[in-house]
């Protein structure tokens, strides 16, 4: 019994029929593990590799390419909040919003609030530019965000 529960292993195995080989399950597996454990530890990487019949370095290589996945030194909080910094949001106050939210939580992008609830990050265009400035809470976009709305949102998490 390693760090991946039997339930997680089953969820990963359930992906196998979708693809002609197991390597294609690397991203789905990383998502499943990070969603459940808020990071992907090196032990988890080894166990994913074993399930997918890969060398751990292959899983690790993919994982580290996508800065989306975090190792044990950068564990995510309960929620992940991304503030868009790309052009359409920047033109409508996105960077000021990022600053406001970071100050509110006393964190820098990439860090997690002291209560462990929120990891703040900046993002490139979230594809919600019609509601600039916008933020993403986990995977739900929230549009036309003012500092007041941001405060309310943070409180609700």
């Amino acid at each position, binding site marked *: 019994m390693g760090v991946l529960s039997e339930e997680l292993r089953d969820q990963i195995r359930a992906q196998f029929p*979708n*693809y*002609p*080989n197991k*390597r*294609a*399950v*690397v*991203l*789905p597996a*990383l*998502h499943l593990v990070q969603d459940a454990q808020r990071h992907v530890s090196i032990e988890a990487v080894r166990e994913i590799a074993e399930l*997918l019949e890969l060398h751990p370095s*292959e899983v690790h*290589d*993919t994982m580290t*390419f*996508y*800065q*989306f*996945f975090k190792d044990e030194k950068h564990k995510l909080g309960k929620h992940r909040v*991304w503030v868009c*910094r*790309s*052009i*359409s949001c*920047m*033109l*409508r106050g996105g*960077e*000021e919003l*990022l*600053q406001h939210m*970071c100050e509110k939580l006393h964190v*820098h*992008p*990439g860090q997690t609030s002291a209560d462990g609830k929120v990891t703040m990050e*900046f*993002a*490139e*265009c*979230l*594809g*919600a*530019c*019609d*509601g*600039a400035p916008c933020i*993403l809470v*986990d*995977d*739900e*976009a929230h549009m036309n965000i003012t500092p007041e709305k941001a405060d309310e949102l943070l409180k609700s998490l």
Partner: protein
Amino acid sequence: MSTFEPTLLARINKPDSQSLETYRRDGGYEGFKKALGMAPVDVINQVKDSGLRGRGGAGFPTGLKWTFLPKDHPGPIYLAINADESEPATFNNRILMEQDPHQVLEGIAISCYAIKSKKAYIYLRYEYGRSYRALKKAIEECYAAGLFGQNIHGTGFDLDVVLHRGAAAYICGEETGLIESLEGKRAWPRIKPPFPAIEGLFRKPTIVNNIETMACVKQILDRGADWFKSMGVPPDPSNPRDAGSYGPKLYCISGHVNKPGCVELPMGITARQLIDEHGGGVWKGRNAKAVVPGGISMGFLSASELDTPLDFNGPGKVGCLGLGTAAITVIDDHTSMVDVLFNCARFFAHESCGQCTPCREGTAWMHKILARIRMGEGQSRDLDLLNEVASSMGIIPGTTICGLSDGAAWPIKNAIKKFRSEFEEYIQTGRKTVKPSDALMEVH
């Protein structure tokens, strides 16, 4: 324009627009049924005849791309749907997937039948959680209704559709980066040829198409090639490589306008019309200084170029890279182009996959040089240096594997050409811009 009836967006914002039940009530999946009664080659010919060109940015003729697949291939052949939509200012795929997922799925089913593929993967950017849930539910409905699965409608045609989530990387939108990512690897684009139609996903023949392209395919099957061709702009006789710009197009409008949004219009509308007639005008009663014509990779239109038609041919005529995603960002006359260009350069430095030296180093240097200009430490010769770096990277000069670097170079080249005096004045008068948020993002 007032008489134009949207088709791609016809069902958007209607109650329960995502459900199979309402979709069918509106005539949904009749086009797929029609296709199933045709020979696959006739479906391809209909799409060819329509003049449809891909909506993902490159504008390649869709029917023609499909004919590049090897003839009589034993399979598998894959359809990989590009739903990575990450070009800054672009959000039309999101609206289609969130609000009318069945329209997209029907286009996918028709396309699979046409190219004899039994398996479609939808590569969806992770950030589109709402699209993910809408598509997931719609796919489940299709299996339950016998629209997907084995022996569909007793025709012997089988189809599986798999949703695959990305992990927040722009380069996964480049079609071979997408393929590598789907295979579970880092999203390093492949050297082409071989093109995906010959050797793509899992080393099998693969067609990569955009979400909006799929919605167009569905409408073409419903309404016919002539209907599609009745809209838009015919080929420019002075450009032998222009294949025309037909059909409706989803234009995104964002930035400094009163009413940002996505509108469907016949191809060939101008940036000025988009701003004034559909975007509610420039905000705060100001004027536009510059407009991004189709995602930041395409460069900039200056204020005197706003009557450029946004078809596949127009933006190139005024020095832009192309139409791109037809997503305009309006920049008002109170905004510094130094800030704008810095923002663009930072994006590409962050998103270069790092595989090719001119792109990895070039995007990093352009970002650094613009940061120093912006902080008031620039010199006039920095502008030529930027130009030199920008001109040395990309598929066009032949130094890189994919088009990200051409897209990184273009806003730089355009801005320095079209707004040079503003940059020179900024540097010479010793202006400085330091936002508190800059420091926050340096740390990352």
